[in-house]
């Protein structure tokens, strides 16, 4: 099977991606992401119920008659909390298991013990020295936000197994008890090393937790710094959006959250007050804030306009895996929960998708800025319930302006259009990659 390239750029990008995909690190990341995909998908469905149906400021709770705060409601709330926290809420723990296991396996060390050591190590790192609850963890880095750290630490533990233990004996022919004991003692050294190192990490994290330094710094820049100049505003919003998008690409966290506006910045509050006084969103004093541009037009289907990717796959892709993932992840994506696609395709760490992942939201935001400054559309100033479907955010946030709805449809079409060539390229990479595997030059 021969693969045709339509232009030089495409060929270069595909070759580069292939090269990266052959790297051991990338192989491990890919397998780890596929391992967490089912949990991420399940968790994202639960998250819909949680934020959209049950959430206090959730989309459906706001729009449809409110569920009463009765016994049944609270039970459902508790059940979904449990399910979410132990699926999408702790994907990093699963990820470190995968990363440590696959790394150890590559070096023919005891992969099971490496994986389990990884889990222990990560939970030790994440252990919170709380005075209120005796057994608790910092929840933020158990989920998607800790993914990068988990994978790196997992590979490090796998590597520790390589350098400080000898080859795992063939486990099939030694069924006797002493075989298992032997296996334990071979891996004892790396296990102890891993746990001690994670203990050091844990102590450092718990000490710095009091200052919450890095996240605070970024957040304070994103929310506190205000400027009355429109251009400065626009630049600032763009910079923080790109930062957020790139960080989510690596499974880290950014300044803006895709799931609704958690914290309104001061400029948005000023906008809202203006709109409430004049009973219109037109000519709001700060047209280029995070809510008017980023939250309204750059988060369809989660960070990076994932909805565009899903539609692109449904239209052009013939790849079975892509299609299955796209169909399953479609519903959560409507409510801006993109974790399914991020881990299933995977988009995370995938060089090919890095370009549209940044380009699509930025294109949408820039166009929205132009349309707003030409007074073709009012800026989105009213706050929106959490989990509002991406394409409806601008519509609701402008108090039902048809221009905003129209532009949202255009914006989806554009992000889909941006994703289409890259979906085709990804398919080519997959074909070439499989050919390479068959020929055995991996």
């Amino acid at each position, binding site marked *: 099977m021969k693969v045709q390239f339509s232009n030089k750029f495409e060929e270069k990008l595909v070759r580069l991606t292939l090269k990266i995909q052959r790297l051991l690190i990338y192989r491990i990341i890919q397998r780890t992401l596929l391992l967490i995909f089912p949990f991420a998908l399940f968790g994202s469905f639960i998250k819909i119920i949680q934020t959209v149906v049950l959430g206090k400021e959730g989309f459906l709770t706001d729009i449809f008659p409110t569920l009463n705060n009765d016994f049944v409601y609270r039970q459902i709330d508790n059940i979904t909390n449990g399910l979410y926290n132990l699926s999408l809420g702790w994907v990093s723990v699963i990820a470190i298991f995968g990363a440590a296991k696959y790394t150890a396996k590559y070096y023919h060390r005891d992969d099971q013990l490496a994986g389990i050591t990884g889990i222990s190590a990560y939970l030790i790192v994440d252990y919170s020295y709380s*005075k*209120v609850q005796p057994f608790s963890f910092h929840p933020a880095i158990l989920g998607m936000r800790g993914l990068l750290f988990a994978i790196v630490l997992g590979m490090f533990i796998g590597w520790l197994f390589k350098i400080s233990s000898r080859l795992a004996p063939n486990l099939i022919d030694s069924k006797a008890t002493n075989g298992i004991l032997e296996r334990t003692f071979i891996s004892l050294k790396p296990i102890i090393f891993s746990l001690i190192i994670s203990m050091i990490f844990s102590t450092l994290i718990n000490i710095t937790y009091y200052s919450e330094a890095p996240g605070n710094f970024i957040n304070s820049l994103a929310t506190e710094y205000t400027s009355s100049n429109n251009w400065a505003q626009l630049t600032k919003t763009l910079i923080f959006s790109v930062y957020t998008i790139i960080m989510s690409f690596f499974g880290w966290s950014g300044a803006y959250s895709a799931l609704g506006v958690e914290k309104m910045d001061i400029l948005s509050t000023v906008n*809202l007050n*203006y709109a*409430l*006084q004049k009973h219109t969103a037109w000519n709001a004093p700060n047209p280029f804030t995070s809510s008017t541009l980023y939250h309204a037009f750059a988060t369809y289907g989660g960070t990076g306009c994932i909805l565009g990717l899903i*539609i692109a796959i*449904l239209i052009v892709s013939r790849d079975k895996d892509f299609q299955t993932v796209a169909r399953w992840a479609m519903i959560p994506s409507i409510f801006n929960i993109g974790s399914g696609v991020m881990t299933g395709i995977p988009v995370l760490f995938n060089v090919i998708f890095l370009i549209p992942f940044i380009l699509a939201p930025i294109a949408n935001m820039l166009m929205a800025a132009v349309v707003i400054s030409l007074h073709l559309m009012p800026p989105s100033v009213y706050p929106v319930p959490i989990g509002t*479907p991406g394409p409806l955010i601008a519509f609701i946030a402008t*108090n039902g302006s048809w221009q905003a709805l129209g532009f949202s449809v255009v914006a989806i079409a554009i992000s889909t259009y941006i994703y289409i060539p890259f979906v085709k390229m990804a398919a080519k990479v997959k074909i070439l990659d499989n050919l390479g595997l068959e020929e055995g030059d991996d």
Partner: protein
Amino acid sequence: MRTRSLRKNKNFKYLVLLAIILVLLGIPSYIWTKKNVTTLAGRYNSPMSPVIMIPGSSASANRFDDLVKIVNRKYGEHHSLLKMTVHTNDTITYSGSIRPNDERPFIVVGFENNNDGYSNIKKQAAWFNLAFNKLKQRYRFNNFNAFGHSNGGLVWTYFFENYFDNSSISVNQMLTVGTPYNFEEKNTSNHTQMLNDLIKKRDKIPEDMTYSSIAGTQLYTDDGIVPLGSVDAGKYIYEGHIKHYTLITLTGSKAQHSDMIASDQFINIFHQYIVGNNINNPGHNKTNKKVPNPQQ
């Protein structure tokens, strides 16, 4: 040609499904937005809900430093502390700061003139109003908890009755310790001028507030300075008007008027009612439907 190839695509039905879901969700949300123009503000949710504290007479803004330290240490929380002092010439000096993202910071408002007496309390309430407006303007919160020690509770009450604008900001919980609503008068049937004034204007106090008043007693009658009856007289102002009014009598080793805020029992109550009330009763944590005042 293009549409035909698209229709042949077996994923076409998924795209149609996607569009249908969006339209189905879009129609009710359109009707809802149109219907709720006036309550759109309801979706504004301020992340910050500070605890604003007023010390008693002859105490400065540093009065609660230890209290904040103890609460942070005991419960493993990291509340930041901002202290403001309002001077007699209406200027305000600041010390400490509010950490960005701190959803429940402590703010202490002290006064340069911190003397006792009804006329001074009136003045302090006016000064507090200055500080409060500055805070509202700067941090744009739309709800808060109130704490007052001794005369601080009188300043709060006078402030609520004479300055507070209930429409743009709401007070969730108030806690006071040893607040002498009837000054040194032991007998609750003898009303001082101040108590009469406060009772007269009680309708101005926001009704959706929950108030817990702590009275300390040593030897059954007073906390060493304030008589139990004087604290109890607060019922004539609050009872039957606000949502909940509770009087708590605190006894034991640190039940003396000034020591009370270091008592373990007090710190438990303080944390439960003022600091952690959003965590302890998630069921009652309704969304606050208010927008900060646009004029500022």
